[in-house]
């Protein structure tokens, strides 16, 4: 079966059909809202049609069976023989799920399970059994056995048969070219196969001889084609094979004797005939190059009409991209090192060269990053279905809007964000959007809206999920925080409203009393936040009671390279992710206050807790005595701000994140290591982790 061998082709199929499946999911949901939109119905029909086409090319019968029926259903729909209704959707969506499962099987290199007979039956029912039977019939009819059902051949036929057998045995004595197909194919295609063999002899290939002349001329070489056949050989078949030789000259596997004979007899203008195999192999080899398109003369005239993009793409294993990214990372490090060294050398030429290298490295890094970019659509694409299912399960009316689906971000990020986003959207629907009746009572439209938005803001991506639901009540949140024992009443009362909203990300915090299927387990938001922070991102929520909530996620464009602020504590250099850094200033230590045992400074009328990183991370934690002013870096985690006192600020540097070795893996507060411009090792600080591990209270 083609399934095993044609891995390349299978992958090709999976890529295209996978995209179609994603689209189908959305289109089906749209269809439920749009009703009988003929454009949409056509699109869905074509989707199933195309998947079926590819699947049948690969002999994936279970896929074909399912798609074929789905296609028929949509054909009936687009022809107006049926209406879109809930029953249809309740059948089609699970069918889509089954197809997705089959695709998962295929991706794992397994043969997909046979199509669920129950589902097939449901589809048949949708069609009304009759029409399905009719649509199936021809296909089956074609495959129907072809065993001779002629019980009494006439005398004429017997004679023919006898002659044919004679011909066949004569053929056996001659040399046998590699054409077993003529004898062993016992399937439908026989007819067409033979017919086409026959048809191949065309005027173009037989310049001067008529078909008959050609037949007799090459009889010797052609007859053997039928050798091994235990069936009768008619004139037509004979002609057909002969013609095959005319037409198929130059084909690998064609009998060379026959080729040469033809050349002698007919003096074909095609010079390549005498050595079909040799001539052939060269162009074929060329063509195996990925993007090797033969330059068509017409292209010169109109360069922009080159064959479509499909042929200019190459599929690359992401592993390879990861490798390239790593190498670029190394290059960035060397570049950093050179930049540092160049300052010492003070040679104009060197400095020119280094500047050049700097520019090129930056460009290269950008280009490589782009190869790994995928549109956020990949993740957003699943939401229409999620929302649709949720709305049905919760009996709410919900409309999903999406903006900026084309925003690109790193492939790894796209994958890593998928689960957290789904959770957040579920949460917004479950907790945020009210029941239609309740909405009506407060003067809102019955249908709630969830808006998913993505945009690139400088070197990071901002994603937001907004709903126009009931919003959050900060006082209720405070109360819950106290009842759940997360903090005492005083601390709760001191929280700003904004801080209250972000309480939902605290572990063990769930506002829903009843645990539902959808959300409300109280671990979700905590996990989501942790996940996003692991991606060097941040998450924040804002809300207005009665008007809705906005959840904002910021993630860096890529995971591999990170802009940092290099700081020094004692003798050691550390890298502080720039995404966390809000501001830097010099602090007169005398302005520092101690409140409730916590060192605090006031920045623009706001108290900010202050930590001496030296105490946590330097080998000699004693404060430096030589100065009464210090550098303070204000960092933000979510809505919270804290100040870090550091010994020295080195400046901004893009670093390549290297994982910590096994010994250090899991060290609290450290997310990785990197090599600095001067060739030293710097640890990369994981700000939330650090605070969690060292700060008294967060």
């Amino acid at each position, binding site marked *: 079966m083609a399934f095993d061998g044609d891995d390349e082709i299978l992958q090709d199929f999976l890529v295209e059909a996978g995209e179609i499946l994603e689209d189908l999911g959305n289109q089906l949901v749209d269809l439920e809202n749009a009703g009988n939109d003929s454009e949409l119905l*056509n699109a869905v029909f074509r989707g199933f049609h195309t998947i079926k086409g590819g699947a049948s*090319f690969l002999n994936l019968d279970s896929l074909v069976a399912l798609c074929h029926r789905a296609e028929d259903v949509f054909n009936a729909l687009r022809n107006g023989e049926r209406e879109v209704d809930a029953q249809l959707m309740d059948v089609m969506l699970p069918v889509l799920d089954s197809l997705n499962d089959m695709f998962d099987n295929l991706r794992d290199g397994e043969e997909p399970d046979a199509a669920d007979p129950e589902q097939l039956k449901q589809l048949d029912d949708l069609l009304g059994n009759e029409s399905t039977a009719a649509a199936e019939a021809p296909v089956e009819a074609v495959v129907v056995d072809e065993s001779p059902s002629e019980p009494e051949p006439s005398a004429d036929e017997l004679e023919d048969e006898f002659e044919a057998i004679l011909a066949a045995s004569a053929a056996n004595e001659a040399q046998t070219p590699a054409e077993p197909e003529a004898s062993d194919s016992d399937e439908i295609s026989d007819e067409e196969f033979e017919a086409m063999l026959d048809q191949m002899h065309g005027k173009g290939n037989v310049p001067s001889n008529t078909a008959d002349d050609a037949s007799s001329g090459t009889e010797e070489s052609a007859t053997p084609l039928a050798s091994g056949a235990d069936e009768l050989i008619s004139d037509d078949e004979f002609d057909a094979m002969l013609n095959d030789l005319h037409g198929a000259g130059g084909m690998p596997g064609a009998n060379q004797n026959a080729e040469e004979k033809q050349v002698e007899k007919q003096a074909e203008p095609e010079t390549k005939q005498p050595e079909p195999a040799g001539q052939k192999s060269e162009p074929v080899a060329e063509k195996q190059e990925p993007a090797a398109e033969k330059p068509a003369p017409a292209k010169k005239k109109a360069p922009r009409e080159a*064959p479509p993009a499909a042929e200019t793409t190459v599929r690359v294993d992401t592993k390879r991209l990861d490798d390239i990214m790593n190498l670029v990372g190394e290059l960035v490090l060397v570049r950093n090192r050179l930049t540092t060294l160049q300052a010492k050398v003070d040679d104009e030429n060197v400095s020119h060269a280094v500047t050049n290298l700097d520019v090129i490295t930056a460009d290269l890094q950008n280009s490589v990053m782009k190869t790994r970019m995928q549109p956020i659509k990949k993740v957003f694409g699943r939401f229409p279905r999620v929302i649709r299912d949720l709305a049905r399960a919760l009996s709410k009316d919900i409309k999903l809007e999406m903006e900026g689906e084309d925003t690109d971000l790193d492939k790894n990020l796209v994958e890593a964000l998928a689960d957290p986003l789904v959770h957040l959207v579920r949460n917004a629907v479950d907790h945020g959007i009210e029941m239609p009746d309740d909405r009506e009572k407060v003067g809102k439209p019955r249908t709630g809206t969830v808006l998913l938005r993505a945009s690139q803001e400088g070197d990071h991506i901002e994603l937001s999920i907004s709903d126009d639901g009931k919003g959050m009540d900060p006082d209720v949140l405070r109360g819950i925080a106290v009842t759940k024992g997360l903090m005492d009443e005083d601390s709760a009362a001191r929280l700003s409203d904004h801080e209250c909203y972000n309480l939902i990300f605290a572990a063990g915090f769930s506002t829903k009393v009843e645990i539902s299927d959808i959300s409300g387990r109280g671990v979700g938001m905590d996990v989501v936040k942790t996940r996003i922070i692991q991606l060097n991102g941040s998450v924040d929520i804002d809300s207005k009671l009665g008007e809705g909530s906005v959840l904002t996620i910021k993630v860096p464009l890529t995971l591999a390279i990170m802009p940092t602020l290099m700081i020094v504590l004692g003798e050691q250099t550390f890298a502080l992710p720039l995404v966390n850094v809000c501001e830097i200033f010099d602090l007169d230590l005398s302005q520092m206050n101690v409140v409730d045992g916590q060192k605090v400074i006031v920045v623009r009328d706001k108290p900010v807790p202050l930590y001496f990183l030296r105490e946590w991370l330097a080998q000699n934690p004693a404060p430096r005595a030589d100065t009464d002013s210090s550098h303070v870096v204000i960092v933000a985690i979510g809505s919270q701000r804290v100040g870090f006192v550091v010994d020295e600020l080195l400046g901004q540097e893009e670093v390549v994140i290297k994982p910590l070795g096994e010994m250090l893996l899991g060290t609290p507060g450290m997310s990785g290591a990197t090599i600095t411009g001067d060739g030293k090792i710097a640890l990369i600080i994981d700000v939330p982790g650090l605070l969690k591990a060292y700060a008294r209270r967060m």
Partner: protein
Amino acid sequence: MVARVLIVDDSSFFRRRVNEILEADARIEVIGMAKNGQEAIEQAEKLKPDVITMDIEMPVMDGITAVRKIMQKSPIPILMFSSLTTDGAKATLDALDAGAVDFLPKKFDDISSDRDEAKRLLCARVRLIAARGLATKPVVTPSVRPAVSKKTSTTIPKRKNHQLIAIGTSTGGPVALQEVLTKLPKNFPLPIILIQHMPASFTPAFAQRLDGLCQIEVREAVDGDQLKPGLALLAPGGKQMKLAKRGGITYIKISEPLLSENYKPSVDITFESVATNYPGTALGIVLTGMGADGREGARKMKQGGSELWSQDEASCVVFGMPAALEEAGLSDHVLALSTIGENLARSV
């Protein structure tokens, strides 16, 4: 000659597969691809390919509309890829009607159970169509026999003794049969049998289509059908159709084909049966088509004294089967397609 091909399919998967298959043949060059009918028209205009392979179901503009527009603007031979379903049959017939030369099943396993063989045959078909060009185009290949045109008749003397018309055809046949049969009046006095090389799933749709277009009645033959004046019976695909007489009534006998039989339905088999049952009293007509099916059956009809007509080269999509008849000296009249219907209506 290298056949320059434009591939039209909305599925990049299929474009690539077809591209791979065609490019593996040194005598075929894929010069462009298009994702939909609209692009196909633009590309066809710019690239001037020798052959276009065309999918039917496509966004923006479907294949049938594209065929129609291309044939209007700058006619190029078009090979349709169709699925062997009832709807596929309808669409394919529409495409042929719009001017497509021929069609192949989209599922390559339906071309041949052997994948490599199917690929080879696909290439061969593309090359052949490229070499032949369109029927209306001057033929470049040296296969033109000047003698042919001399024999071409326009009006044919009337013969009284015809009792049955049998028409056999292959590539180009759907359009040709339509052209001939639509010219026949409702009260056409003779029964007609039609043999068109076609997959089993296509013949019901084809018969239905002809019935809708013609004044005479056309339907797919079933076993036991009786011949009637003004009724044309189309041989079902994948089977063989013969005639049999019982008690003075001629009826249709449909049988499963033998393994060795290349064509299902076969013109030869039906014509032979006509020769046996209507010795000297049938009119056999062979229309456009590749190959030589029909020649041996026609020979037997001729031996019994029946008259034979064949389509002339200029009006054939593929001048194969009629050529075989002519070369064997069997054809009594060589006619342009446009005159066959009239002659038929007049001469019987």
